[in-house]
C-alpha cells in the first residue's frame, strides 16, 4: 500500500481541502517526505525528497507530520480485515502485507480473482493497493512494488529478471555493494559468480535472491499463529440470523473435522471467526477438555456460545464470511478412556468431560473449576482452583502435606480474611469473644494455636490460627496477626468457616 499514510489521513478527513498532500518526518536533521498522495505524486513529488525541495516545487503543498504508530495501527486493522480471505496474514511493516492464500483461492474464483477482489475492496475503503501473486513471499514483494502490472507466465526467474536489485528487499549496505559492482537488475545476479560476494552484505543479497526464487526457505511470522486446520466459508449474500450462522458453523465443523480425523487427532480448542460486512471480525471460542472428534459435539458448543453472544454480535450489516480455526489439536490415545463404562449406572469420564465442556461454554471456563492442591503452608495458596476445561486429563495432585500433619482446615475460605474485634484473656491465647458481622459471639471452645509463618518474600507476618466454636456451635477459623506487646496491636481475622 504505497500511499498508506496519506490514504489514512484522507480517509479520516484530516486533509479536507483538495491541495496535494504529503507526509514528512525528521531524518538526520532535515524534514523528508515519507508519503505523498496521488496529486502530489502527479506533481513529481516523491518519497525521500526533502520538504524544502517539495515546497519549492509546489508552495501550497499540504504537508502533515508523519504518525508511524497510527500507520502501524491502520496496517494491523487492514491485516485483520484480510483474515477473511486467509488465516495466514503477515504484517510487513511499514506498508505491506503477505497473504498466504494456499487452500483459500478456490472460494473466491481463483487466485487472480481473489487478488483483484482484495485490491478493489481496499480501494473502495480508500486504500491504494498493489498486489502480486507469486510462489514465494520475496517474489510477490518484488512484483507488487516494481512490476508494471503486466501478466507474466514464464516462471519467477524470468519475471524477476528485469527488476532492479532493490526489489530483493535489500538493506542500504547490500544495495550499494551491488551498485558498486555494476549489478543493476536481478537478472544480472543470476550469472554473477557467487564467490565474488564474500562480504556479509553480499551474502545477504544472495540469500534474498535465493528466497525470492524459492531456493532458500523463508519463515514469516503471521499476525495470528496459523491454525493447524481451518475451514473457510463465504456467503453469497450476507447473513443476519444466528440460525444461518449456526448452519454455516455446522458445515465448517464437518469440513474441518475431516482434516482433523486425517491427522488422527481431536479438537481441544477452536475459534469461529465471523467476518462482518462492516469490516469487523467477531471471534467465538470454544474449548474442549478432551480431544473431540465429533462435529456434532463442536456444533453443540458453538450453538451455546452463539446463543450467548447473539446480542453482542452487532451483525446488523450482515456477516459475509466465516472461518473455523482448529487452534489446538491433540492426539487421541488408542487405549480405552476409562474403566467405568458409559451408559451404565455411572457416567463415564467422557460424559463428565462433555458436561464440563457444555457448562464452560455457556457460563465461561473460569466458572467451572476443579481443585488444585499445592504443597505450600500458606493457607491461601495451599488450595487453588483451576478451570476444569484447561487440562482435564491432568491428575489432581494429592495433598502434598499429609492430612495428619496439618490440623483441620475449614470447608470454605474467604477471598480476603475478614477483620474482627476480638478480646483475649491471655496475651497469646485464643479470643474469648469476638464481634463479626456486627454480632457478638461468645467463644465456647478453642483449639490452637497453629503458627503459620508468613512468606517473607511477600512481606507477610506470622499468623496464629485457632479453630473456635461459639456457644451456638458455629465454627470459625480465626487468626491473629502480630503479637501483644509489639508496637502495633495484633489484629484478628476470620479466614474460613467449618461446617
Amino acid at each position, binding site marked *: 500500500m504505497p500511499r498508506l499514510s496519506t490514504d489514512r489521513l484522507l480517509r479520516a478527513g484530516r486533509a479536507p481541502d483538495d491541495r496535494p498532500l504529503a507526509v514528512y518526518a525528521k531524518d538526520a536533521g532535515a524534514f523528508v517526505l515519507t508519503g505523498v498522495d496521488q496529486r502530489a505524486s502527479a506533481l513529481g513529488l516523491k518519497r525521500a525528497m526533502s520538504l524544502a525541495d517539495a515546497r519549492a516545487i509546489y508552495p501550497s503543498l499540504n504537508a502533515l507530520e508523519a504518525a508511524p504508530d497510527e500507520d502501524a495501527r491502520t496496517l494491523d486493522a487492514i491485516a485483520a480485515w484480510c483474515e477473511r480471505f486467509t488465516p495466514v496474514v503477515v504484517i510487513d511493516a511499514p506498508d505491506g502485507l503477505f497473504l498466504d492464500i494456499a487452500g483459500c483461492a478456490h472460494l473466491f474464483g481463483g487466485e487472480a480473482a481473489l487478488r483483484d477482489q482484495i485490491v478493489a475492496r481496499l480501494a473502495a475503503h480508500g486504500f491504494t493497493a498493489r498486489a502480486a501473486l507469486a510462489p514465494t513471499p520475496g517474489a510477490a514483494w518484488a512484483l507488487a512494488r516494481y512490476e508494471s502490472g503486466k501478466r507474466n507466465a514464464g516462471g519467477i526467474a524470468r519475471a524477476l529478471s528485469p527488476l532492479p536489485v532493490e526489489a530483493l528487499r535489500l538493506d542500504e549496505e547490500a544495495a550499494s555493494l551491488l551498485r558498486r559492482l555494476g549489478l543493476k537488475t536481478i537478472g544480472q545476479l543470476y550469472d554473477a559468480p557467487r564467490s565474488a560476494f564474500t562480504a556479509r552484505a553480499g551474502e545477504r543479497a544472495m540469500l534474498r535472491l535465493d528466497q525470492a526464487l524459492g531456493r532458500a526457505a523463508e519463515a514469516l511470522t503471521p499476525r495470528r499463529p496459523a491454525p493447524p486446520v481451518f475451514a473457510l466459508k463465504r456467503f453469497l449474500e450476507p447473513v443476519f440470523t444466528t440460525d444461518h450462522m449456526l448452519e454455516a458453523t455446522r458445515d465448517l465443523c464437518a469440513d474441518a473435522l475431516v482434516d482433523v480425523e486425517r491427522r488422527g487427532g481431536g479438537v481441544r480448542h477452536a475459534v469461529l471467526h465471523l467476518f462482518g460486512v462492516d469490516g469487523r471480525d467477531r471471534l467465538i471460542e470454544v474449548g474442549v477438555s478432551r480431544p473431540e472428534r465429533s462435529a456434532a459435539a463442536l456444533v453443540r458448543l458453538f450453538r451455546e456460545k452463539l446463543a450467548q453472544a447473539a446480542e453482542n454480535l452487532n451483525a446488523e450489516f450482515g456477516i459475509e464470511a466465516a472461518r473455523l480455526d482448529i487452534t489446538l489439536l491433540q492426539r487421541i490415545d488408542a487405549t480405552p478412556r476409562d474403566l*467405568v463404562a458409559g*451408559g*451404565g*449406572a*455411572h*457416567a463415564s469420564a467422557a*460424559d*463428565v468431560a462433555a*458436561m*464440563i465442556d*457444555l*457448562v464452560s461454554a*455457556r*457460563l465461561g471456563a473460569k*466458572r*467451572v*473449576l*476443579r*481443585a*488444585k*492442591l499445592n504443597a505450600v503452608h500458606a*493457607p491461601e495458596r*495451599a*488450595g*487453588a*482452583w483451576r478451570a*476444569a476445561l484447561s487440562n482435564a486429563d491432568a*491428575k*489432581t495432585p494429592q*495433598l502434598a502435606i499429609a*492430612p495428619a500433619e*496439618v490440623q*483441620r*482446615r*475449614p*470447608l*470454605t*475460605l*474467604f*477471598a480476603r480474611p475478614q477483620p474482627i474485634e476480638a478480646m483475649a484473656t491471655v496475651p497469646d491465647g485464643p479470643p474469648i469473644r469476638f464481634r463479626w458481622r456486627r*454480632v457478638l459471639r461468645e467463644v*465456647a*471452645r*478453642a*483449639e490452637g494455636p497453629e503458627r503459620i509463618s508468613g512468606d517473607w518474600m511477600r512481606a507477610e507476618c506470622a499468623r496464629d490460627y485457632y*479453630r473456635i*466454636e461459639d*456457644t*451456638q*456451635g*458455629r*465454627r470459625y477459623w480465626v487468626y491473629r496477626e502480630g503479637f501483644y506487646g509489639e508496637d502495633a496491636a495484633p489484629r484478628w481475622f476470620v479466614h*474460613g*468457616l*467449618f*461446617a
Partner: protein
Amino acid sequence: MAAKPLHEIGPAAPSAQSTAIGFALALAAGWCGPAGIIWAGEENVFSEEGAPYAPGLAQFGLDPERLIVVRAAKGEEALWAAEQGLALAGAVVVCVLSNHGRALTLKATRRLLLIAERHRSRCLLVRSLNEASAAWTRWRVQSAPSQAEARELGPPAFDVELVRNRAGPAGARFIVEWNADEHSLSERVAGDYLAAAVDRSLAPRRARA
C-alpha cells in the same frame, strides 16, 4: 434419603448457611460414586460464606478429584448447571442458591426431580426459602455444639429437623455427627461424651440419613 433423588436443606437461621452447606456436603460425600460431586452455587453465596477450600474439603472426606465446582453468576445459571450435572448417571449435585434467588420455582424443582430420576442421579438443594417444592424431604439445619471434653472441638455436628417429608411423617429431630473417615453420619447418643464414645464403638446406631 439415599433412595430418593431430590432433597432440600435449609439453614435454621441466616447465620447457619455454612452449616447447611456442610450438611449437604456430608450427605454428598457419603453417596459419592465414580461420577463424582458437582457443587453448583451462586457467586454471592460463595462471597458471603467463603469459597470452597480444597484442603478442608479433602479432610472432610470429599475427594478433590471427584469434585467439580461451578461458580455461577446468577441463580438461573446455577440451576442450569445443576441440571447438566444431574444428566450424569450416578452423580451427586449440591446446588446452593442464595436467599434472594427466586429462580427455583415449583416447576424448576419438578424438572430437577425428573432429570435426576431419569439418570439415577441425586440432588441436594440448599436454599433458605421454604416454598412449594417437588423435593422428597426438607431439612432445617443448624450447628450443634460439640460434646467433647475440655475445650476441644468434636467432629462436625448438625442439629437437623425433618420439616417436610412426602413419604412419611415429619417433625423428627436429630443431632448427627459426621465421621469423615467412615463417610457416615451417625446420630449422637445422649449422655456424656465418654459414655457416648463407648456406646458408639459397641453399637453404631445410624441415623436415617
